[in-house]
């Protein structure tokens, strides 16, 4: 047993300090305000303080830390994207994730499992090869493998998929990992808090004040704050924020659902994704199977669950692993995904001076948490879009310069 655990045994009292504080009240003004106390907002706060020495920052969270999509996604980390812009960005993220437990001194259970994206048709196999080639070019460990190789690494999988959609091959991404998602938010919050950044939970933004095209302050249900720089990092709630500054975006909010089974002894080490079956599945360190599927088919600003989601998902899980018929689904939930037309994020500066966007995270936001925090912090500190996110600026749409990730992201969690 590690010494760190012994110290618990050696003390009579429980001496663990607070991870984060609850400030008495909002100050009159801050250098910067971050809307959204999820992974992205907290990571941005952490990097503002750590990389740029800026700590006069308030993080405003209408609910509780990591209560949005940070705590609702299926916690998969990977970088086997399709476009060079995407791969470069997500691979930086993955590298930060690998060191994150040490950097935040919190065990985030970062667990490299190997990530399969199954192909059931030669058309999807072509896309897999496209991704693999781009990935390899960018130095990312990613390979198209045969059904036999899949079987060797993941012996329980039924290559026939119940006969309806036999597996033709897969994109295999060894660094693909899962991680304890809530802890990511807590770790960033603790380190930001430790560096003097204020985290205000249960604080709702009600308006953003601008004069001649620039931000001057933020209205909240706890009073007005003067500030010149505001970051919106609220995923599914982004349209409500952009509305406050009169900014139009391509975002459409659609629910993404997920569910978990009762805990089982470990049997599935890998992360298995099938785009055409619309299912992705991994086993958590608690032993639960964590699963998700495609987006719900229409716009919705709520987190309701549906029965047809879990029916369809179950059918596809059994196509892959027929012996799970008697395993029980314990709980289902949903998050609100902020979808973009090209399945790439919208990040950085906007036409409104001092208003920064970190959105368009659709179904791929969690895996970008560290890098979006780092690049958005840089962008806010310097006023210039970080190089990694230049391709993702909102202006790309009116310039017809989309970054086509669709082939990699459709169900590529």
């Amino acid at each position, binding site marked *: 047993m590690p010494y760190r655990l012994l110290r618990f045994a050696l003390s009579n009292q429980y001496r663990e300090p607070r991870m984060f504080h609850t400030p008495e009240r909002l100050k009159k003004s801050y250098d910067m305000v971050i809307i959204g106390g999820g992974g992205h907002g907290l990571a941005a706060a952490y990097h503002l303080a750590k990389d740029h020495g800026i700590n006069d920052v308030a993080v405003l969270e209408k609910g509780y830390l990591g209560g949005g999509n940070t705590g609702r996604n299926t916690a998969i980390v990977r970088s086997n994207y399709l476009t060079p812009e995407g791969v470069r960005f997500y691979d930086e993220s993955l590298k930060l994730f690998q060191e994150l437990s040490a950097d935040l001194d919190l065990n985030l259970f970062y667990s490299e499992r190997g990530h399969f994206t199954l192909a059931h048709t030669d058309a999807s196999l072509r896309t897999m090869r496209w991704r693999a080639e781009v990935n390899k070019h960018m130095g990312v460990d990613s390979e198209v493998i045969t059904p036999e190789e899949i079987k060797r690494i993941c012996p329980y999988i039924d290559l026939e998929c119940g006969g309806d959609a036999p597996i033709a091959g897969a994109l295999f991404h060894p660094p693909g990992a899962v991680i304890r998602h809530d802890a990511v938010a807590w770790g960033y919050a603790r380190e930001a808090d430790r560096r003097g950044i204020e985290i205000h939970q249960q604080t709702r933004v009600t308006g953003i004040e601008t004069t001649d095209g620039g931000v001057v302050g933020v209205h909240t249900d706890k009073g007005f704050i003067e500030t010149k720089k505001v970051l919106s990092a609220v995923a599914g709630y982004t349209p409500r924020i952009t509305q406050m500054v009169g900014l139009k975006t391509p975002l459409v*909010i659609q629910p993404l659902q997920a569910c978990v089974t009762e805990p089982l002894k470990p049997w599935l080490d890998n992360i298995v994704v099938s785009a055409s079956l619309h299912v992705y599945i991994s086993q958590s360190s608690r032993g639960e199977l964590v699963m998700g599927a495609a987006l719900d088919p229409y716009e919705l600003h709520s987190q309701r669950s549906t029965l047809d989601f879990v029916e369809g998902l179950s059918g596809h899980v059994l196509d892959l692993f027929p012996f799970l018929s008697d395993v029980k689904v314990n709980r289902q939930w949903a998050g609100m995904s902020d979808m973009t037309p090209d399945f790439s994020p919208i990040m950085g500066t906007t036409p409104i001076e001092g208003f920064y966007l970190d959105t368009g995270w659709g179904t791929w936001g969690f895996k970008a948490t560290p890098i979006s925090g780092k690049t958005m912090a840089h962008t806010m500190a310097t006023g210039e879009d970080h190089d990694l996110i230049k391709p993702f600026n909102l202006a790309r749409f009116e310039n017809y310069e989309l970054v086509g990730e669709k082939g990699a992201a459709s169900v590529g969690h």
Partner: protein
Amino acid sequence: MKLLRCPINGLRPLQEFSYGGEVRESPDPASAADKQWAHYVFNREGEPGVKREWWYHIASGTWFIAERDNVKDIFLKTYLYGSGEQTQ
């Protein structure tokens, strides 16, 4: 599963339909500036609220308009395009 009332086929489960996106007025392509057109092509009314949407009943091939509260996920009324007439 939700129920949706098709003006032709009546009240049916949502799985019989497919979603066609918001009803959007195209600016006049001849007079619209490039930015204005790009705005029409890419941007959406993403805010929560009551929207006019296209819905399609698959089995019968029927397009119609639904006014939906996309926060409560409640269909307020549905009617055929052009006929503002309400169907309960």
